């Protein structure tokens, strides 16, 4: 309490409206008020202080605080464990891949992989981290498709039937409820108790009262958010697996600020309803109802309805797959026609001609027709008795063509993905109206765990595939003997590009989150103005 008084005094001296002396001389409560009568800043401070104390000393503050703290800690703890597992799985997968990569000695054999590194910020906001695939296998003539990407992280995919609860989910649900519970009786409660009349009979301007009540309420919610958040960070930090760098800390601070903004929106909503209704119970019921709709119902309803009645119809998957198979037929026809016309061979393998006596065998493996890609491997037995120079020419023609067809197939799949993405964006657009979801999206963008960053991974995997193709064509690998045989030295793959997936930079993430941050801000401003204006016009009976 003494500390509080001192703080108050310091604040008041800072505002230079009150002198140290007078306060010290008359440290009694009454004189204090008298002194501050004509000083708006001091009055404001008094209102804030009163609101703060009336919140902090209630049982709801203590219960809310404990529950918020404990559930955040539990959620972070569980997610840290999960993150450790995913990270270990990632490292094993990368290591295994490196080992396999060392055994490649043919250019046609390479199968680089794009692994997605788990994001340490997913401890706070899981988002797409666990449900999305984390490995894309790069095959030159297989289109990269989101659906065909694989998961290696999860030891038990069935466990994903449980909702992925993280700190942000807890904030979204519990903090918003607490904010509303703090705000519901700010005006209507006082009105019912009759204290509002008493307060306003003092020379306190109404605007000071509204602002003071808002700031006081926020001040009491502030420690809850900050302490829960810090405890969460500490738990995450205690794990040896996490390595937060400076940028991550910036992101976490941004998340903290967003959380405060979100809490403020909820508080303002409660206050507005408190001004609009005369009875505290009505305010409570109404605000809890709106809370339920905005935090839980709204986005789920939107997601679900759009999933069942999509506004944009993507092409049926079966049709696309048939189309792709058709394209591969076309590829074979085009290639065979060209090979026949240019070199007069029935089949590429016919380009292999014997130079001395003896049996030789060409084995060819092609993929089954159901696959979206088209792989073709040649194996030539007794290669020393055959001439492959023509065959190399044929390969130099056919392999780029095959890759080109794969790119066309990829374009088809991408078009379907884009339509599906438009549906998702549509859902997002609707969900955003609820500030709870705007908060979720903004945090997702900042922690880089949302759908966009997942798609960024797929995009990068596609780009990586192009890099690998460029690398191979730069080395003239398609016409190299090492494409199909290692008898005269295998493929040199030391400088094969490695997949890299850097996170978006912080400003990029911030700009991606900007729309949602803007929505949160607009909500705040609108609600504040509404509460402010309504209270100015409030009739005290």
């Amino acid at each position: 309490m003494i500390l509080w008084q001192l703080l108050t005094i310091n604040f008041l001296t800072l505002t230079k409206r009150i002198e140290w002396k007078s306060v010290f001389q008359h440290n009694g409560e009454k004189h204090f008020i008298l002194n501050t009568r004509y000083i708006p800043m001091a009055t404001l401070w008094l209102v804030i202080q009163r609101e703060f104390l009336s919140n902090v000393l209630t049982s709801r503050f203590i219960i809310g605080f404990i529950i918020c703290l404990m559930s955040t800690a539990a959620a972070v703890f569980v997610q840290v464990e999960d993150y450790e597992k995913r990270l270990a799985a990632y490292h094993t997968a990368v290591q295994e891949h490196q080992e396999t990569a060392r055994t490649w000695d043919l250019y046609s054999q390479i199968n680089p992989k794009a692994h997605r590194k788990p994001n340490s910020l997913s401890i706070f906001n899981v988002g797409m981290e666990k449900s999305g695939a984390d490995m894309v296998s790069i095959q030159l003539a297989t289109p990269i498709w989101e659906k065909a990407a694989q998961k290696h992280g999860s030891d038990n995919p069935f466990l994903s039937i449980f909702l992925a609860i993280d700190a942000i989910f807890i904030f979204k649900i519990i903090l918003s409820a607490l904010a509303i519970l703090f705000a519901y009786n700010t005006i209507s409660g006082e009105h019912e108790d009759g204290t509002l009349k008493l307060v306003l009979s003092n020379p306190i301007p109404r605007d000071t009262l509204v602002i003071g009540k808002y700031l006081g309420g926020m001040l009491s919610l502030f420690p809850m958010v900050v302490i829960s958040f810090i405890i969460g960070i500490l738990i995450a930090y205690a794990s040896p697996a996490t390595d937060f760098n400076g940028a991550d800390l910036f992101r976490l601070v941004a998340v903290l600020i967003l959380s405060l903004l979100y809490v403020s929106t909820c508080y303002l909503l409660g206050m507005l309803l408190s001004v609009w209704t005369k009875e505290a119970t009505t305010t409570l019921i109404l605000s809890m109802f709106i809370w339920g709709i905005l935090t839980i119902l709204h986005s789920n309803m939107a997601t679900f309805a759009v999933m069942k009645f999509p506004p944009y119809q993507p092409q049926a998957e079966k049709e696309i797959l048939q189309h792709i198979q058709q394209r591969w037929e076309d590829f074979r026809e085009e290639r065979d026609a060209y090979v026949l016309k240019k070199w007069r061979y029935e089949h590429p393998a016919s380009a292999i001609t014997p130079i001395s006596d003896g049996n030789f065998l060409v084995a060819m493996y092609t993929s089954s027709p159901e696959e979206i890609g088209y792989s073709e491997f040649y194996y030539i037995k007794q290669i020393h008795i055959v001439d492959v120079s023509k065959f190399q020419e044929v390969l130099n023609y056919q392999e780029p063509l095959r890759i080109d067809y794969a790119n066309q197939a990829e374009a088809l799949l991408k078009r379907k993905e884009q339509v599906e993405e438009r549906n998702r964006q549509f859902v997002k657009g609707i969900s955003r109206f609820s500030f709870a979801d705007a908060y979720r999206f903004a945090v997702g963008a900042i922690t880089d765990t949302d759908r966009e960053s997942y798609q960024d991974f797929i995009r990068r995997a596609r780009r990586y595939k192009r890099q690998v193709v460029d690398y191979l064509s730069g080395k003239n690998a398609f016409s190299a003997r090492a494409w199909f045989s290692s008898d005269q030295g295998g493929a040199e793959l030391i400088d094969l590009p490695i997949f890299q997936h850097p996170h978006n930079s912080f400003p990029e993430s911030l700009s991606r989150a900007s729309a949602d941050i803007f929505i949160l801000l607009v909500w705040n401003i609108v609600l504040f103005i509404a509460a402010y204006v309504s209270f100015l016009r409030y009739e005290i009976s």
Partner: protein
Amino acid sequence: MIWHIAKKEIYYNLMTLRFVLMIILLPILMIANALIYGFGDNGYTAEIRDYNRKVNQGRSHIEKYAARGLGELAMVGPAEIPKRPPQLKFCADGIDALIPQSITIAHRINWERPEYEDLVESYSWRELWSLEYLPSNHGDDATTLIKIDWVFIGVFISFFVILFTFDAIAGERVRGTLSLMMSNPISHGQVLLAKYLGTFFTLIIPLLIGILMNLLIIYLSGNIPFDSGSWLRILGMIGLFALHISIFIFLGLFFSSRVSNAITSLVWLLLTWVCLAFIFPSLLGLFVGTLDPIPSMERISAEKRLQLANIEDEFRPAALVEATKLSEAPSVDNPSATRLWATYFRERSEVQTRIADARVDQQLRQVQLACELTQISPTACFQYTIEGLANTGIVSYISFVKQVRRYRNTFIDFIKTEDKSDPHSLHIYPVREGLSQKPVDPETVPIFKERISHQNAIFPLGLLILYNALFFIAAQLSFLKCDLK
């Protein structure tokens, strides 16, 4: 007197804002559910069409291979086994997207290595079929998995229960009517019961109306066929709604009489509700990974590779082709070679089956443990019971897996008995050449039939009833102890 208080309670509730809000929201949810599941895209009709297509594919698959002879059929096995889509998915659909809807059959085809043609007789073979439990792949944000099904509506109603009960006792105490009421010749228990009944009826009647509207729309849409069994199950679900609501009423009455003012009671209730409905079921579910860890995927696949390599080294060492035991291809005229191949195939298949089965068993055991842990939340119990009745959810998948395995044994037994009846066969399982080469009548080949049992619903149902009793006692005790002023 009880009825009198209950009636007063109902009248009072009817006049409140919360009732108005509920009477608006509940039908909206129910109608949305009906529209989405009754008319929505990829609803039951599409699913059952897909299922029937797969069943027909399975039948023609068996016909095709049965005509090629028993030996061929024995190696290929049945086609993909689909799980029958549940009719009552609109009641409990929450996690169905995450649960595989079929068990596939793995076929591995091997070409003989051409390098050693002079040492090894060339034989292209197909490995014995085995069950493959592929996880379903979905790519959506994990927090948006909540679906508007009956389970979700049930959870939302429990939220309303809280809004109705938080001031049931505390409010009366503040208004001073509690002591007035208690001055009548009436016991504490009776007052509590009357309060309970009053709230229960205010909630259950709008719910029943909502359910009727929902069923009417779904019925009129004609997309989901109902038989007497499903009506009975729906009736059971309504009973579950009642049980679930009643638990939360007791909980509300407990807190309401425990604490001095209504708002504290609401804070307690709200946080308890959030914990019971969302946080416990998820956190405990995820916590199982730490509590009962299973070996990682990498370790399992390494083990599998090692065991297969051992068999490979024993029968067909790559380094020492001369030492291969399988230098001769199996044929009807060469029983000893056929027997060797049979041992090779059997050992490989045993390793694969054992590891795949053990893997999925471990995973499912872990999930089951998680489900059991989460049952400390009545909401989770409510969900599992409805899932048990609707035959959705993880438990139905577990029973599906068991039945498919039983079917695997039936299929193998069928092959063996059928083989015994052919005197020309070598009776060596599992090699194509060691078995009867005669075509099989496809009608006699056993086909998979899923039997649906609702036994899984019994345990959570018992828990729901237990929770009712527990919370009733808690509410009763706390009301007995509470101050009237």
